[in-house]
């Protein structure tokens, strides 16, 4: 079984658009609808957020969506049930993004097994340390062909970037500037960092995420990496405009300036 993330980057190394949404938000059973509509809208890759009570790296928008999802009753178990037949309809790569504690309680091996069975291609666990990954995740990830996607920021040292590149498969998640999600930092002040990473010739391609919210920031990301990841701006959009196909098309069109 080929990994869809690796295949995607083989086929396309520019202007990749990846969208994040929180599982169970706005309603418990929206997961497959949002996935289908994102694929229809031409999104290349999706990240499904596993809601958590204490998301340290997230700003108010994603925090609130997670809290509502939890109030709606979302759990990892329910999310896996919702994804049961997803590969009959959706073909774009799917990444699960979540904090380590709920995964530990579910059981690391059970979690990775479920991901493989359902056709989840990668995981992003922002608070998973490299050594812990190597001890408890790496072997299963390799056997099950699941990408482990790690983050770097403008504060990450060159030495750490090399180590992270070794522990990562699929792509590196390049945080646009050292912040939580949805902060309004000016990306134009970070272009030295983007060029430095571009010139690093890492093993993995990079996508820039955090604070990407319009066509300008999307284009800037595409200039310096293989594309962009959008989270808070999409969550805000569906909060205001709903999850219908039209609404989601409008969002991706705005970002790509297809109007």
């Amino acid at each position, binding site marked *: 079984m080929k990994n869809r993330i690796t295949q995607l980057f083989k086929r396309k190394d520019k202007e990749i658009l990846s969208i994040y949404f929180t599982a169970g938000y706005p309603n418990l059973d929206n997961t497959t609808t949002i996935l289908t509509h994102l694929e229809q809208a031409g999104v290349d890759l999706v990240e499904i957020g596993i809601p*958590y*009570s*204490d998301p*340290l*790296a997230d*700003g*108010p928008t994603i*925090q609130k969506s997670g*809290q509502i999802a*939890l109030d709606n009753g979302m*759990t*990892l*178990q329910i999310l896996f049930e919702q994804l049961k037949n997803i590969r009959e309809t959706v073909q774009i790569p799917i990444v699960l993004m979540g*904090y*380590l*504690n*709920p*995964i*530990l*309680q*579910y059981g690391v091996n059970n979690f990775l097994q479920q991901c493989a069975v359902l056709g989840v291609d990668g995981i992003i666990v*922002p*608070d*998973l*340390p490299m*050594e*812990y990954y190597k001890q408890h995740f790496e072997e299963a990830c390799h056997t099950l062909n699941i990408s482990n996607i*790690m*983050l*770097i*920021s403008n*504060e*990450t*040292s060159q030495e*750490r970037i090399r180590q*992270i590149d070794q522990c990562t498969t699929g792509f590196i998640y390049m*945080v646009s500037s*050292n*912040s*939580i999600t949805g*902060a309004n930092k000016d990306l134009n002040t970070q272009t030295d960092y983007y060029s430095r990473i571009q010139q690093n010739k890492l093993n993995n391609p990079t996508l820039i995420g955090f604070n990407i919210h319009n066509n300008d920031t999307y284009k800037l990301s595409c200039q310096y990496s293989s594309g962009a990841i959008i989270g808070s701006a999409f969550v805000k959009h569906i909060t205001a405009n709903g999850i219908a196909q039209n609404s989601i098309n409008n969002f991706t069109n705005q970002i790509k300036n297809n109007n």
Partner: protein
Amino acid sequence: MKHFNPDEKGYYGQYGGAFIPEMLQANIIELQEHYLTIIKDESFIVEYQQLLKDYVGRPTPLFYSNNLSKQYNAKIYLKREDLNHTGAHKINNTIGQILLAKRLNKKRIIAETGAGQHGVATATTCALLGLECTVFMGAVDIERQKPNVERMKMLGAEVVPALSGSQTLKDATNEAIREWINNPKDTHYVIGSVVGPHPYPDMVAKFQSIISEEIAKQLMEKENTDKPDYVIACVGGGSNAMGAFYHFIDNGHTKLIAVEAAGKGVDTEETAASITLGQKGIIHGSMTYLMQTADGQIIEPYSISAGLDYPGIGPAHAYLSDIGKVTVEAVTDEEAIQAAFHLTKTDGIIPALESAHALAILEKVKFNPSDIVVVNVSGRGDKDMLTYSKYFTHEK
């Protein structure tokens, strides 16, 4: 062994470590690389000890309580951390960390607070040492702890309400961590207990270890031994307990008792007994015991005492409890209140509600007459007068 250290990755057995997002790594790595060098530096030690002596008022007395000793038929000593400037042990840590922050050229201090004791100690130290100070406090706690909010403001700190989650201590901690992520260069985060990612549990333990260092010296003078039979302390995150236990952990003699808040009882939903009831997992960047659902969501705890109202526990305590070096007990709201009124009546000391949990253990343990028992009175009860006065009018 005189010192109790984690391994170089910050683990005590399987507990501890640094489970943090990449955006926090730069800050944490800087601390990990420098904290030991700085706190072992001679000029740092001199400045720290001078301030503890002349500003905080250390050493704090080790008071032999005649009345309690008679009643419980053992030699009962009270370690008077309540007599520190600002009224609790918290300032031992804030002075240490803020001196360290200055040596790292930080310009601004952030902190979390629950009841406000750590916030007041941080604001106080910042006023003294001339740093900008922002304290995150749950919106619910701001309502409950008005006098400490006013103190922090008078001391020049900005108090920012934490509006996320349950709006209490764990959320104030989340907000402080997020603020630190957004300010990776000029800011130091002063954590108030032996919790959080490595090196905080070890760093805070070392700053609080002055408590057991003094107890050992004072007992040598009074009892001609540096090995008490018992040391008893309350645990929220576990900093006053870690400080009171530190030099006795490996002496092969002293029985160490850590007292958690049972709230309305460990068999109820309203409790904060993180070791007794918790499961292994991650909270605020550390592997430890915490109160959580089967799905790994962190549960909001309950205790009458805001300082013990924390769903986790320092990783060193999780480890010491697992290997049997520390015994963990849980005390209810009601038992703590009784103990507070009792000490006030017998000895004229109004303890903090947190410390009252430790005092309540005297009722539960059968001592020998020759036993030397030290109870750490971590703070004074001024901040709890509203709670106490409710029971007071009740009694009349």
